[in-house]
């Protein structure tokens, strides 16, 4: 608990990806000076242990904006602790949602 803390996400960029036959991955973030900030990762996925969420978010915090989904996927995959079980989603599913969140900026502004 307390992974990201309570905070306002009204104006943040928002991306969703539903894994085929899997779960929904939702990413909210800000882009400041071409970098990702205030990243939140939510959804109806299963993750064991729960604490594995924090390093995945940390791997995205401050990462360059505008990368491809695969680049974000690799950044996340590198920090997933050994023995972690990700059910219904994957580092690359998160990568897709990160890219979609940034595309929402392109559409909205």
């Amino acid at each position, binding site marked *: 608990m307390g992974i990201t*803390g309570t905070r*306002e996400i009204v104006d943040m960029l928002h991306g969703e990806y539903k894994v085929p036959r899997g779960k929904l991955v939702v990413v*909210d973030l800000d882009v400041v000076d071409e970098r990702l900030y205030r990243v939140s990762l*939510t959804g*109806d*996925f*299963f993750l064991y242990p*729960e604490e594995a*969420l924090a390093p995945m978010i940390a791997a995205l915090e401050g990462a360059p904006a505008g990368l491809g989904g695969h680049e974000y996927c690799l950044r996340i995959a590198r920090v997933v602790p050994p023995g972690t079980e990700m*059910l219904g989603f994957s580092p690359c599913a998160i990568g897709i949602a990160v890219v979609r969140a940034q595309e929402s900026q392109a559409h909205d502004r």
Partner: protein
Amino acid sequence: MIAEQLARWREQDWRLIPPRPLAPAENLALDEVLTQRVGRGERPPTLRVWAWASRAVILGRFQSVRNEVNPDAAAAHGIDIVRRISGGGAMFVEPEGAITYSIYAPESFVQGLSFAESYEMFDRWVLDALGELGVNAWYQPLNDIASDGGKIGGAAQARRGGAVLHHTTMAYQMSTDLLGQVLRVGQEKLSDKGIRSADRRVGPLRQQTDMERDDIVHHLIGFFRARYGLTDDTVTPEEEAEMHRLVQEQFSTRDWTYFLP
């Protein structure tokens, strides 16, 4: 069923905590308490059948409130918003609308099984018990109970301190209009469901069995007892006190429910 799985179940000394209406936050806190107790060896493996004192939206561990719930509609109808310790999706439950149970087992119970295999094993008895009621039900990986008449329910697990919590909720009867007002279902969430559109139907058990809710619950408990063995039990005063403490400190707090706003 597979003999190896039957042996796993029968090796355990299962206890039953029968239904007692609890507030939504109390139900979730009690799951945490009993999981910890089983993990520490202070309680034998246990089946708890839930009862609800009021309506609630129960969010999965990793879901954002904003993405799943319409808070104005929930408030207008007096519906609590709470967060559980297991992952998975949001549920809307009403006191007579759902059948929920939790199974608390030591981690040794699922040793050698993948997570997906363990999900199915925990609910295998329910599929067979429903079969006796004329409902042809099966497990749809990862965590759904499906049937000829539509989706019946879903399961979620949490693992901590040497124990596994597996809880399952099945629809008995649905207030689909209220559910549609309170829960948000985005387009993306539905995006891959076109290829299996039959699964989108929900088949509440009342519609499929024409039985009273209590009679179904009684049948399920009797089935578990006959197959695996089950000794009647209650929540101890210590567990009750711990539940109340966790309601105050965690499950009824805004910090917990809105930690992913």
